[in-house]
């Protein structure tokens, strides 16, 4: 039985704004699902609806099989970790963690045992007598997680729990959350705007845009087959290069005088929200998938090659250590074309800002239609020979 099921969940705020606009998803037991999206896309609203802190305007929320729409937060069997930790400042760490159990009127020995177990799991036994203000950010974060763990909830909810930590601590706590989740076999719904955090933590990833699900899938499936330009831009760092495709002389043309040849694929299965899944299926069934309007290629899938299709000017180099990001100008394209290249090859070729270089595609190409949806086609690039072709014609 699923831990949590949402069916067409809608939140309309007073004033008519639909912050959450029909979310369908299922959280399996022991799964860590990350909801990711830009600021203001409705992540917090969605999580708060699950927690019972916001009313549900429409749709159905089931937790552990029972309808939870009208349940009080405390009755839902959820625990939440807030971005600002929300520790009770006037209580010791022990009392913070014990608060829920005390309210449940559990026996004193049981409370002590459960708090100590959770504290041991998080390595905060030495802090139990302290007040929250006597703790560092990372320690507060642990206490907030401890408070959630003590309650043994059916679902853990996290709302950007790492945003207030510095970069190093963020990585450390990320690993810790993952370790805990696997150790406890806990079901977690985790909200973040940070796509790196999302990629590294998630069993499954939900990309949210304007209150709607853009795509659901494993991090790698989203990386490899983004269902839309939005997902393509959002998942992966640096972001995927997106090039406009224009139709001229009966051919698909790209900036930089390139020609795009495509051939329809049999089917391509992308897990998205149900209604968009239907769309994808329909377009796959149709004899001819829609024409491509945008071509995507990841910076990792471009390499330096004297025979490469893209003739570009190197505008800027960002050295990351082993690799470097090369920002290049492609005639006819406003945004820079980004390539992730091994630093050694750049240095060996003695390239610097201003050099004329050629880049070849060394990986999959992604095609999107005029509605920015993924197109089920295989693509091939070639240099423009149309001058010759048209002269023959």
């Amino acid at each position, binding site marked *: 039985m699923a831990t949590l099921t949402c069916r067409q969940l809608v939140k309309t705020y007073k004033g008519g704004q639909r912050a959450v606009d029909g979310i369908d998803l299922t959280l399996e037991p022991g799964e860590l699902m990350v909801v990711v999206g830009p600021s203001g896309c409705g992540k917090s609203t969605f999580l708060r609806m699950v927690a019972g802190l916001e009313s549900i305007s429409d749709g159905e929320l089931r937790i552990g099989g029972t309808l939870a729409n009208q349940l009080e*937060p405390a009755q839902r069997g959820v625990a*939440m970790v807030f971005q600002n930790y929300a520790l009770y400042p006037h209580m010791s760490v022990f009392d913070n963690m014990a608060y829920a159990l005390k309210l449940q009127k559990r026996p004193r020995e049981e409370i002590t045992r459960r708090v100590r177990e959770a504290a041991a799991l998080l390595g905060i036994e030495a802090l139990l007598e302290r007040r929250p203000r006597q703790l560092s950010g990372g320690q507060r974060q642990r206490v907030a997680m401890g408070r959630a763990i003590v309650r043994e909830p059916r679902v853990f909810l996290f709302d950007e729990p790492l945003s207030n930590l510095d970069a190093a601590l963020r990585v450390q706590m990320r690993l810790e959350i993952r370790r805990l989740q696997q150790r406890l076999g806990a079901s977690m719904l985790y909200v973040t705007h940070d796509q790196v955090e999302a990629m590294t933590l998630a069993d499954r990833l939900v990309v949210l845009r304007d209150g709607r699900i853009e795509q659901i899938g494993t991090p790698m499936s989203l990386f490899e087959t983004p269902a839309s330009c939005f997902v393509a831009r959002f998942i992966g760092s640096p972001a995927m290069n997106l090039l406009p495709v224009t139709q001229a002389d009966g051919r698909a043309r790209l900036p930089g005088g390139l020609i795009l040849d495509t051939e329809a694929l049999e089917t391509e299965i992308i897990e998205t929200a149900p209604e968009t899944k239907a769309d994808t299926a329909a377009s796959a069934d149709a004899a001819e998938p829609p024409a491509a309007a945008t071509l995507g290629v990841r910076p990792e899938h471009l390499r330096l090659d004297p025979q490469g299709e893209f003739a570009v000017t190197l505008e800027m180099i960002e050295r990351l250590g082993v690799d470097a990001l090369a920002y290049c100008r492609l005639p006819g394209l406003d945004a820079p074309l980004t390539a992730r290249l091994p630093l050694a090859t750049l240095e060996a070729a003695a390239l610097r800002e201003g050099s004329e270089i050629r880049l070849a595609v060394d990986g999959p190409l992604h095609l999107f239609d005029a509605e920015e949806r993924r197109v089920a086609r295989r693509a091939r690039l070639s240099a423009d020979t149309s001058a010759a072709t048209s002269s023959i014609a």
Partner: protein
Amino acid sequence: MTTFERHSLTPWLLLAPQLVVVAIFFFWPAAESLRQAFYVQDAFGLGERFVGLANFQHVLASPGYWHAFGVTALFSLLVAAGAMGLALLLAVLADRVLHGARLYRVLLTWPYAVAPAVAGLLWLFMFDPVLGVLTHALAAIGVHWDAQLDPGQALALVVIASIWQQMSYNFVFFLAGLQMIPASLLEAAAIDGAGPFRRFFGITLPLLSPTAFFLLVMNSVYVLFETFATIDSTTLGGPGGATRTLVYKLYEDGFVGRDLGGSSAQSVLLMILVGVLTFIQFRYLERRVAY
């Protein structure tokens, strides 16, 4: 740093007018009163004689002083409890208001801008035995109201007027205190299983305790000194001394009874009382509210 040191005269020049005012109208009279507490004056204020602690002995031995002390204690308790309780209730309600919140806040803050004497008069009119709106309302439910005759009603009148005044001040602080409490704390408590009352008494109230402590100190001082105008414009300490607080008795003895020595001794005692109260509050209460 050096720039500050070099111009060390400028701040004093800028402060000078204020300091002069404070010196003339506060330190000088205070010092004078301290001196006079050890002297007796003749009835015309022409001569005086050093008497040591005789003024204090006389004051502390008089039943009238202890009566005023009792009235003050009761009065303080009623006003502090009433003004803080009411202010907290209104602040909690105003904190929940979503629409027109600003208007409520302004309206609830207004009474503080009214001078105590005017506030006293307002309530005196409303409770006037013949013309008062509230007197008629009370008569309709069978209560005969005449604050000029009934000691209990006189005390009630000044207590109500003082609460009404002080409530606004407390309200502003309580509301600010409430708005400082992050919503996520109460949400976390709700998820932990605390209902609205538990959240209020278990989270909100403890977090407001520093504010409440500050207000308790401020209200005590207010009741001991500031209510003079309220009493003077309404009951004049009567009937039968029912509303004669320490500060009002001090005024009566000194300016009506012309007993400057005795009155000065009382003012010194009052200052000591305020000091002791503040000390006790800081010493014992603050320890319990700090988190």
